[in-house]
């Protein structure tokens, strides 16, 4: 097994046909297994695009992405879904929970897409809510929760299929200071439990806690720093 759970090689992403926007220009990074990495840089310079390509949400225009040693750049749509289900947990800035489902059902929804993870989903979802300290909110609807609580539910959902990698796109960007602190505490605990975390952020405070930092500017990797 490779020491690097995520590897990209000359990753390029171009949007549009007539008016072409170069979002990424030849990015090559390596993320060690079990590390806590941050991707930083100004808005609109390609951080989220990089995260989406790593997360198999989108396909690169050229270059290569490997997740856990498997090149996902040329996988079919269905295979990419499997990678997302097994290997990756996503946490978005705006939570992206399904409003008409309860908190528990939101977590169970992620479980139902995993081939070998369909048993006891209710019990396991409750367990994950315990990890993020929301056991008492299992039957609440997202509209009944605060921003911090919503993000903790989103984290629990990302952990639904016990993926080795968690990708987080500014998960605290929409939270107040207190909630940010609370959510970060849970993220750090999850990292300590062995998960690889790739975290897009604007916050210097969070970036300071990273073991590895990638700075993206104009779609290029400007620098990477080890702790």
């Amino acid at each position: 097994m490779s020491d690097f759970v995520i590897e990209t090689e000359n990753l390029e992403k171009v949007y549009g046909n007539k008016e072409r926007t170069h979002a990424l220009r030849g990015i090559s990074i390596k993320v060690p297994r079990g590390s806590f990495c941050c991707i930083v840089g100004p808005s609109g310079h390609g951080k989220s695009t990089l995260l989406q390509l790593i997360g198999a949400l989108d396909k690169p225009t050229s270059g290569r992405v490997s997740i856990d040693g498997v090149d996902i750049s040329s996988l079919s749509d269905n295979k990419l879904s499997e990678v997302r289900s097994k290997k990756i947990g996503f946490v978005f800035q705006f939570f992206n929970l399904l409003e008409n489902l309860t908190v528990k059902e939101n977590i169970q929804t992620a479980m139902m897409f995993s081939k070998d993870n369909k048993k006891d989903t209710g019990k396991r979802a409750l367990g994950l809510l315990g990890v993020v300290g929301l056991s008492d909110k299992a039957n609440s609807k997202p509209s009944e929760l605060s921003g911090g609580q919503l993000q903790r539910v989103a984290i629990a959902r990302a952990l639904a299929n016990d993926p080795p990698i968690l990708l987080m796109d500014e998960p605290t960007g929409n939270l107040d200071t207190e909630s940010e602190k609370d959510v970060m505490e849970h993220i750090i605990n999850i990292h300590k439990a062995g998960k690889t975390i790739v975290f897009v952020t604007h916050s210097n405070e969070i970036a300071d806690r990273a073991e590895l930092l990638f700075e993206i500017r104009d779609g290029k990797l400007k620098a990477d720093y080890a702790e």
Partner: protein
Amino acid sequence: MNTFKLALKNMVRRRGRFVFTLLGITIGMASFVALLSMGNNLRSEVTRQADELGADIIVMGRVDCPFIHRAVLAGEQLPESVPREVVARIAGIDGITAAVPYLTLGASIQQTPITLIGILPDEMKAHRGWGVGNGTFFESELERSVVIGSGIASRFELSVGMKLTFRGLDFPIAAILNETGSNDDISVFMPLSIAQETFGLDDYVSFIAVTVDDVINIERYIAAIMDIANLSVSTDEELLSSVLLILGSLNITLQLIAGVALVAAAFGIINTMLTAIYERRREIGILRAVGGKSGVIFRIFILESGLYGFLGGLFGFAVGFVVSRAAAPLIQQNEFVSVLGNPDTAVVFSAALLFTVLGLSVLIAVISGLYPAWRASRLTPMEAIRNV
């Protein structure tokens, strides 16, 4: 949590739209159920009447059309157009076992229209195999009394000895027939000569029901009858097909109307599901992001359409059932299809009909959902999330 539960939750999320889409397919299926079964019941009712007529050959006046055929089968009023003297001559043809004249007249009891039939009592009793419940059947062909069907007796609360008035003359009820299950139950019978005299008619009858001993040679008998008089002669099967031909076109019309309602309902589903895709782009993206394959999205949307079909079929069946019963009295106003007014011919509950309706409804809904489901499943996770 599974795709079925997810589809169900999505479906009822927008209650107004859910109700109106469901209403569309419910109305479509209800009209399908009501119109189709009315058509089919009409057909089976006419076939039953033809069976009950118990005649191999019908001799009518020269005016020969499906409306007349229909009136013969239903035992309704017909013009007197066959000379009575023909009856005995037909009965005298070798191989003819009976020639029974019917003079069907319009009359009323307590201001309610009924059919009064002038008959040759002994021939008719033997031909129809009547049993007498109460009273004494006509003892002569000149008896000034009436015999009534069991349905007439119960509907107007009549009993033997009571009097009915026709054309200002009183006629005591001599007997009440046992229930036959045919139109005889809802008719009043009077000796032929007395009926002609009462209604001021010449010596004519409406039609003659003929039975033969050898149905295979029916054409020979028809020719023999036509030699006797210049009349219209048909077999019971010809009579039935003539009526069914008209009913067939009526059925097609009814089915087309039901079809239009179903097509409208199908477009309602397509519209609802396409709108749902635009509203739920973000949700589709989330499902894809957490590992949902395009097939799962397709399945959720198809399930949702199918559920509309299932529920619409279920409610449509129930509504169609109620509507066909409520509409029966209105349909009675049309003479040709008046038989539909009989509550017994409204939609009859049957598991087979229910399953047919549910199957058709789900099939239409699933077909309607194919395109929206395909569109939804083609959305990439980023396309869906980005476009919110």
